[in-house]
């Protein structure tokens, strides 16, 4: 059909691609089969998110067990050996099997839709990446059954998520648990690199007509930065897992201190991955905020170009700060000064982003729907997390508090206060697009307030036992240290957060069947994913869209005052 021959657009109605999703109903087996063989970016995105949410529950239970053990001094709820396994598996799971899959899930689902493409650049690579990541998760958890640990029974890795050498060498970890850990991370790393390549090729090569680099919505821009960071950061992790396996299986000496190998080299290699990884996880949280805050403030994002520059800047700076995890390992004073200053440098682009979000909200017509509530909490918590981060970047201060609960509080403030909060915001915001139904708002508000209360009870308070000298990764403590009340409050806060997450789970299941039908554009938003029906058809757009500004749906809804007139 000749597009020119269609009647002039009447408001939003004419421009929306309302082609309904195919509703072919097959048998149960056919449905399962279609999910297993799918190469559709939307289905793979949902698989990623579901996989991440399942492991969120698993790792959450591990966190609760840790908190029960630490709620009172001299507790004997779990053994020291189990405790070591729990915090190792909690950390590894949350980073590799929760954070990365959910981040990649949203990226898979949203990036092609937002740039007006029909799929990722390499759909089959996409499916491969997901399934190898899923395999990695199952492999890691199989170690509970097949681990063959020290005692000859099934166990799990117990060397902390950074797995410092030489504890991981054959001499000190003779069982197979470290092998499960290393191979699982190797496999998940291959999946992550595959997805990163796919995202970069999609963002730069699959844009619809008219979407120049400076018209890409901020979310795909940030995902491109994330993909670049994955290439630069996850590859070193893959390399050092290969080294560890060479040591363990071929008798190599990379980290074998008795043959001259270096434990410090492992620490450097791990944190060359480990610090950019934080930004791999937090930049998508920024990306969600970049989409949600403008829509619920009814204003275009403030300082688009500065946001792009700041995000890419964070990507580059974060590659040169890793040794701030290692101040107490013994570096030269030049090294300490360099990594203190480079770490502080990160606060400049992140500050730019924070002020841009505030300027976006400023003077806006704010709607306090659940996604916006989570975004506002994110703004506060992210600033506090950044401030304790600046404290910890000062090497002299760091020497006092390294490996204390202050550090644990700081990084959970980032991982939960910023990343998990924005993942929740993204779930509320895009759930209608993914399922076609709204999440329940009042349950959402229950979820939000319980989460805020639980989060602050746990992680605000957690700073203080750290300042009072409580080290991380201890399975119990003496009653006369002055940590008792604080630890009890932390544990109660953890339980409240667990209830909040259960409210979310109930909301997601309930709303899937009973939720209000969303329609294509429930939030009156401006980016291209809302131009399709909810859920979108397999091919996304029947006709490739063409855009003339950063907010194509605004142009469509407001032909009298289009953004394109100002670009």
């Amino acid at each position, binding site marked *: 059909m000749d597009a020119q021959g269609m009647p002039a657009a009447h408001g939003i109605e004419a421009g929306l691609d309302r082609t309904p999703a195919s509703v072919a109903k097959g048998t149960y087996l056919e449905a399962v089969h279609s999910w297993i063989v799918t190469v559709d970016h939307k289905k793979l995105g949902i698989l990623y998110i579901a996989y991440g949410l399942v492991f969120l529950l698993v790792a959450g239970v591990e966190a609760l067990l840790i908190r029960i053990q630490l709620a009172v001094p001299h507790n004997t709820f779990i053994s020291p050996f189990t405790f070591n396994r729990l915090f190792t598996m909690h950390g590894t799971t949350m980073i590799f099997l929760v954070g990365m899959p959910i981040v990649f899930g949203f990226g898979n689902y949203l990036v092609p839709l937002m740039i007006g493409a029909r799929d990722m*650049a390499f759909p089959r690579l996409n499916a491969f990446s997901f399934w190898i990541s899923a395999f990695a998760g199952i492999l890691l958890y199989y170690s509970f059954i097949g681990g063959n640990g020290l005692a000859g029974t099934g166990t799990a890795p117990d060397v902390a998520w950074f797995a410092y050498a030489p504890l991981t060498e054959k001499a000190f970890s003779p069982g197979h648990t470290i092998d499960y850990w290393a191979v699982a991370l190797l496999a998940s790393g291959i999946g992550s690199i595959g997805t990163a390549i796919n995202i970069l090729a999609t963002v730069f090569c699959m844009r619809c007509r008219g979407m120049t680099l400076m018209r890409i919505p901020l979310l795909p821009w940030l995902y491109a930065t994330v993909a670049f960071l994955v290439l630069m950061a996850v590859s070193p992790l893959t390399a050092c897992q290969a080294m560890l396996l060479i040591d363990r299986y071929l008798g190599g000496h990379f980290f074998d201190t008795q043959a001259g190998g270096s434990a410090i080299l492992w620490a450097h290699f791990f944190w060359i991955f480990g610090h950019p990884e934080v930004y791999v996880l937090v930049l998508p949280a920024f990306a969600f905020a970049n989409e949600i805050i403008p829509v619920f403030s009814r204003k275009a994002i403030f300082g688009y170009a500065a946001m792009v520059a700041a995000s890419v800047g964070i990507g580059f700076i974060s590659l040169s700060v890793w040794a701030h995890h290692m101040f107490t390992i013994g570096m030269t004073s030049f090294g300490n000064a360099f990594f203190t200053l480079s770490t502080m440098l990160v606060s400049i682009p992140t500050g730019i982003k924070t002020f841009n979000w505030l300027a976006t909200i400023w003077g806006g017509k704010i709607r306090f729907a659940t996604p916006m509530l989570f975004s506002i909490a994110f703004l506060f918590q992210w600033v506090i997390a950044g401030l304790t981060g600046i404290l910890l970047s000062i090497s002299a201060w760091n020497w006092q508090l390294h490996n204390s609960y202050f550090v644990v509080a700081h990084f959970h403030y980032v991982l939960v206060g910023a990343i998990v909060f924005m993942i929740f915001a993204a779930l509320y915001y895009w759930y209608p697009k993914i399922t076609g139904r709204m999440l329940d708002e009042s349950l959402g508000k229950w979820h939000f307030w319980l989460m805020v209360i639980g989060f602050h009870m746990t992680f605000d308070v957690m700073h203080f036992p750290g300042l009072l000298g409580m080290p991380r990764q201890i399975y119990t403590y003496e009653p006369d240290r002055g940590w008792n009340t604080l630890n009890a409050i932390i544990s109660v806060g953890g339980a409240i957060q667990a209830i909040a997450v259960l409210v979310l789970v109930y909301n997601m299941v309930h709303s899937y069947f009973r939720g209000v039908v969303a329609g294509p554009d429930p939030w009156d938003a401006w980016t291209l994913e809302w131009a399709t029906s909810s859920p979108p058809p397999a091919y996304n757009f029947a006709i490739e869209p063409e855009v003339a500004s950063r907010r194509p749906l605004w142009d469509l809804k407001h032909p009298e005052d289009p953004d394109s007139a100002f670009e």
Partner: protein
Amino acid sequence: MATIPLQHAKHDTEWRQPSRGMVAMASLITAESAIFTIFVVAYLYYIGRDIAGPTPKQVLEVPWFYSACLLSSSGFIIRAEHAIEHGRMAAFRIWWLVTILLGLTFLYGTASEWYKLIVHDHLTISTNLFGTTYYSLVGLHASHVVVGLLMMLIVLSFALTRHLRAEHAYRVKVLALYWHFVDAVWVVVFTVVYAVGRQ
């Protein structure tokens, strides 16, 4: 159809984006470079830290001939790229075959070096730090040569059965980019292992 494109102006303007094959290969090369960097850093860090022999200076000989084979293959693959772009398929097959033969020669060089080291010098991956880092780094590079050769052999089989035509020039160029990367990495590995490491 219930659809209208969001905008339908400027259909005459050209809409160009980078090719996804090249962007993806460049991304893969970025990731691979990071992996090689880690192994190179480990090699440099452990030079001279061994508590037992043999040392690089005692056992390593500079593989001038085989290195020249590998590096010159980059020149021949460029000839092949030019040939297929201009539809000269006979020339393409010759240059492509020459590239593969040079790659195989290089691989033979690595194999014979390893044979000498293992059988005559009794240096294995578990002997000392030098053995661990040397076999890992050179082995990592050799495995990339093997992958490149396998891909090029697949292309060769298509070329010999006349399934490969001039319109596939772009895919050949993507693969050639990988081969250039493998060669460039050898410059680094050569410098580190045979120039710096034998000091």
